[in-house]
């Protein structure tokens, strides 16, 4: 028999008396007209009857006693666990207190360190005071240690060939005068050759090179010979530029000077051997005109101080022989 779940549900509600009066009337109408529904109703009623007719079981007689005993047991266990909970609670509280105290101490220590760092007077760095003919006691050590690192004596020779020896000579002499290098240079005029033996500070050499850079295009060739103890023989930099010379002499040590000079020598040699050198030279000339060697200038509110003799700067001696050769 095919069962309609909705009819089944209605019939079950009918059996259980869970229908409204209207629904009951509807079911009764269905039952009166459909024998199958009537049959289904009987089947469901028998199911209900069969389950309902199952004998009721009785609980064990000692149920009440067992419940009481169980409650007593639980109460005891509960009390024990309460005592345990209290003890563990007290322990937990103690641990928390100790941890809180440790955290507080740590915090105070950090704060104290921070405050000390901010408030505590710092040792002022020694201020160098420049005095003519005198060196302050604090200065000696600092300068000496610094000069120890910077101590170097550069020896080199710069050979410049030009077709306009007279103009170049005039320019160099004027530059020497302008840069107050008269005391540091000893010019020697020979036939078709001028030799300027320059012994000055790095700063003085830079000033001279900056000015020479302006007329560098008047030189047909420029070769720098860097004397070095490391390599035994001088490093020769052909087709050297004023900027390259400045770069070389401004290195911190003689070894670095020699290394940089070697690099430039290699670079310039490669450049000279490249095809289309004329074009490269033209480009080089144009770029050179754009890049000018920066001339050291005084900026800001700085006051010039007269450096006492025997200072660190004196230990950075630049010995450069500039040989200007005239010719076609």
């Amino acid at each position, binding site marked *: 028999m095919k069962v309609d779940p909705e009819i089944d*549900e209605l019939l079950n509600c009918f059996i259980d008396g869970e229908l409204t009066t209207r629904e009951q009337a509807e079911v009764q109408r269905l039952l009166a007209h459909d024998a199958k529904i009537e049959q289904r109703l009987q089947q469901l009623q028998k199911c209900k009857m069969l389950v309902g007719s199952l004998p009721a079981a009785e609980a064990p007689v000692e*149920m009440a006693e067992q419940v009481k005993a169980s409650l007593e047991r639980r109460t005891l266990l509960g009390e024990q666990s309460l005592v345990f909970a209290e003890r563990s609670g007290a322990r937990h509280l103690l641990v928390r207190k100790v941890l809180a105290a440790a955290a507080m101490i740590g915090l105070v220590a950090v704060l104290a360190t921070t405050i000390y760092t901010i408030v505590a007077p710092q040792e002022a760095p020694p201020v160098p005071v420049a005095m003519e003919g005198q060196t302050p006691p604090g200065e000696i050590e600092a300068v000496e240690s610094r000069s120890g690192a910077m101590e170097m004596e550069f020896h080199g020779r710069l050979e410049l060939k030009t077709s306009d020896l007279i103009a170049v000579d005039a320019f160099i002499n004027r530059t020497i005068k302008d840069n107050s290098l008269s005391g540091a240079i000893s010019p020697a005029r020979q036939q078709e050759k001028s030799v300027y033996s320059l012994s000055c500070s790095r700063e003085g050499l830079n000033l001279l090179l900056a000015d020479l850079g302006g007329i560098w295009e008047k030189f047909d060739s420029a070769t720098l010979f860097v004397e070095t103890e490391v390599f035994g023989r001088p490093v020769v930099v052909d087709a050297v530029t004023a900027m390259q010379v400045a770069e070389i002499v401004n290195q911190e040590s003689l070894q670095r000077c020699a290394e940089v000079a070697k690099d430039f020598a290699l670079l310039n040699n490669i450049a000279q051997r490249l095809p289309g050198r004329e074009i490269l030279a033209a480009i080089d000339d144009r770029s050179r005109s754009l890049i000018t060697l920066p001339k050291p200038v005084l900026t800001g509110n700085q006051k010039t101080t007269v450096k006492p003799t025997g200072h660190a700067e004196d230990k950075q001696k630049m010995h450069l022989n500039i040989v200007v050769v005239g010719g076609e």
Partner: protein
Amino acid sequence: MTEAANMDIHHRRASNGHINIDDVVLIEQCRQGDSVAMEHLILKYQNRIYNVILKICADPDDAAELTQETFVKIIENLNKFEGRSSFYTWAFRIAVNLTLNYCRRNVKLGFKSLDAELVQHNSQAKWLLRQFLSDDSSPDPAAVAQNKELCEIALESLMKLDDAQRAVVVLRDIEGMNYARIAEVLDIELGTVRSRLSRARSKLRQILEAIL
């Protein structure tokens, strides 16, 4: 209002299952730690609760243990009972929930139903069942209850229903609760009670026919 009239009102209320004045008094006394009242409360409900639990879980020992646990829980939580539903509904909710949770946890029931499938009924039992189910018979419920073999078949068939269906059938056909109360005990919708009960009875009919 006379004392007789009061008694009548109490009786009617009690019969509707909303407020049972005895329960209210017993609960109050239990809350105050009266062990006699507690014993009265247990004795009053123990058989009904045990019977329902047994019909759901099918094992007398487990049923006894679950009944005990139910009462312990009832007494421990009496202070939380607010009286929004009747004590009877509240107590049965605890009992059925404990039992259904136990059934879900315990695979023992699964073995039981497998064992039940292996039960071979003798020809007399089958004949009795056939007679009972035949369309033209009008069996007497009292006679059915007397018949041990039919009762065994009924119990076996009941155990083949799933837990939720069995709980609805037991609460309705054994405990005699109306749909609204079943919904309250099981915490489900009234419509769910109707459909679940309908499916349970339909399945029960199929199980019984399969035995034949």
